[in-house]
């Protein structure tokens, strides 16, 4: 059984829905004209034709063309060692296809990744959340209209629960706190830089106000004749 024969068999199961198989570098590709029928087609490919391993699902953004997105499914069968590629298209307005997680459970993360990177939603997916970017990220970075350098966006707040036991004590630095730099022991003060020294003195004042006393070696007097 070759990939081409299997492709023809799959095509025979859905008359008028699947294109003539095309071959490039020994790989067989079928185009499915209706993305809504993908779960049926995949279920048949798995059950009847032995494509038990879903290698990968990929999305392509054909920016400027209609329909905009292409979905690519790579199928493989451990029984016959044949490969098959299924392609289907989905428009920008719709951006939604039914999930194939019911056929192969490995589709779960692949579909989440496509949703995350390309913004195509998978109807019926058990847990369609972003996977590589964080929850609440507003863009879809693999789209062609997203710049390589990225766009500024809000980074989520760091989720703190209760204050740690020694919070506010002499050895704890609060990230982003006013006195962070002053408390950081690795910060080195160039002795000749009077501006920097004065700034440090001011920060020390902050510390004193916040805690009633300054920790560490205490204020550094500016060098005589430096300014």
């Amino acid at each position, binding site marked *: 059984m070759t990939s081409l024969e299997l492709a023809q068999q799959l095509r025979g199961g859905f008359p008028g829905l699947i294109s003539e198989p095309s071959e*490039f570098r020994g790989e067989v590709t079928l185009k499915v004209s209706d993305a809504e029928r993908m779960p049926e087609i995949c279920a048949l490919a798995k059950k009847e034709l032995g494509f038990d391993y879903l290698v990968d699902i990929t999305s392509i953004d054909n920016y400027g063309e209609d329909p905009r997105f292409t979905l690519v499914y790579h199928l493989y069968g451990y029984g016959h060692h044949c490969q098959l590629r299924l392609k289907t298209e989905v428009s920008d307005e719709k951006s939604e296809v039914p999930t194939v997680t019911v056929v192969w459970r490995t589709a779960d993360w692949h579909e989440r990744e496509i949703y995350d990177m390309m913004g195509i939603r998978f109807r019926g997916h058990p847990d369609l959340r972003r996977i590589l970017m964080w929850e609440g990220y507003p863009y879809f970075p693999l789209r062609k209209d997203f710049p390589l350098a990225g766009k500024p966006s809000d980074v989520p707040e760091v989720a703190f629960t209760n204050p740690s036991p020694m919070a506010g004590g002499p050895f704890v630095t609060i990230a982003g706190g006013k006195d962070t730099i002053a408390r950081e022991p690795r910060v080195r003060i160039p002795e000749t830089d009077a501006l920097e020294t004065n700034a440090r003195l001011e920060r020390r004042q902050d510390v004193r106000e916040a805690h009633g006393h300054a920790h560490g070696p205490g204020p550094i007097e500016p060098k005589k004749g430096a300014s």
Partner: protein
Amino acid sequence: MAESREILLPDAAAGSDTGEPLRELEGERMVLNVGPSHPATHGVLRIVLELDGEIITKARPEIGYLHRGDEKIAENMTYTQFIPYTDRLDYLAPLANNVAYALAVEKLLGIDRQLPPRCQYIRVICCELARLSSHLLGMGSYAMDVGAMTVFLHTFTEREKIYNLCESLTGARFTTAYTRIGGLSRDLPPGWVEQCRKFLHEVVVNIDETETFLTRNRIFMDRTQGVGVIPKDVAIDYGLSGPNLRGSGVDHDLRKAHPYLVYDQLKFDVPVGATGDCYDRYLVRVEEMRQCVRLLHQCLDKLPGGPINVPDGKVVLPPKDRVLTRMEELIHHFINVTQGVNAPPGEIYFGHENPKGELGFYINSKGGGTPHRLKIRSPSFVNLSILSHLLPGHMLSDVTAVLGSFDFVMGEADR
């Protein structure tokens, strides 16, 4: 200031006094966060566990902490320029990634069958050295995850030797970027084959010695046998690949199923597990290391002479002396560097048997020197997706045993 508060405990005995039937107390579920930076997670993986006592009831892996957008980057540079980025996928086996990527692009160009024999043999040597290095680390860190420190020191001694070999071969220990489209960046340095042979003789002894620490070790067996069992059908359903798939008893190795390079001319066995537990995955890796040594010996014995690059100036940079003296080579050099290798329109998928599993590159080309879309099918990403199915029902202490047995790398999971 800590405030004291009263802790109210349901009084079971009081209930029986009042005549109410005793009911089993249902404990509150506790949510525990493992990672994102935890010594046993092998990278920045975070798992949100829901616990009932010590039993895991729900597991939610959170990935993406190492996401760099490699696929986006690939769309914006030539095929050759992307080679160093492949080092940073599975950074424990950069040589194997280089080979996988080069083969994928060569498949697109249609020159994957025209590679000179010497190039093919050297690439196999690269792949197997990378596999050996990756499995040595996998073994050492796995032993450490389940509480054995010494193994790590032994395997890292051997890995150091592999890094020295890599350094003399490629000029870099970690970020090798050794392959080129249509060949290699340079030939083997003088004396390298002898160095490699010496290393192979040492490493087999070390593998045997190291194995005596673990394979029949009662503690190690208790911690790994019957833990994290993945049946065959589940492994296939979740798309596992590599040693994790073979540990579950599926006899599938891309080097055997679809031989690339010269794997069809070399003799090696594919170890397969029986029960699919952590112990089996460990055993498969140990045996694969021995097969690596076997393959490497064969390659070094058979290593032919001749060129290492495809004789096509439109793919590989021509030799510098000819670039400086001849017009045609100068043009080839200029076009290759500025525009990249001119690939035909089309699409290919190439799956490569990497140490961690099937590393696949799907390249969609519209012609020209840059891919229209390059998708990296990384084995670690797919292998990790089974965790939410596998972990529930296990004890909390088994999490490290299961994670270690998967031998994943977040660099390629997050890309």
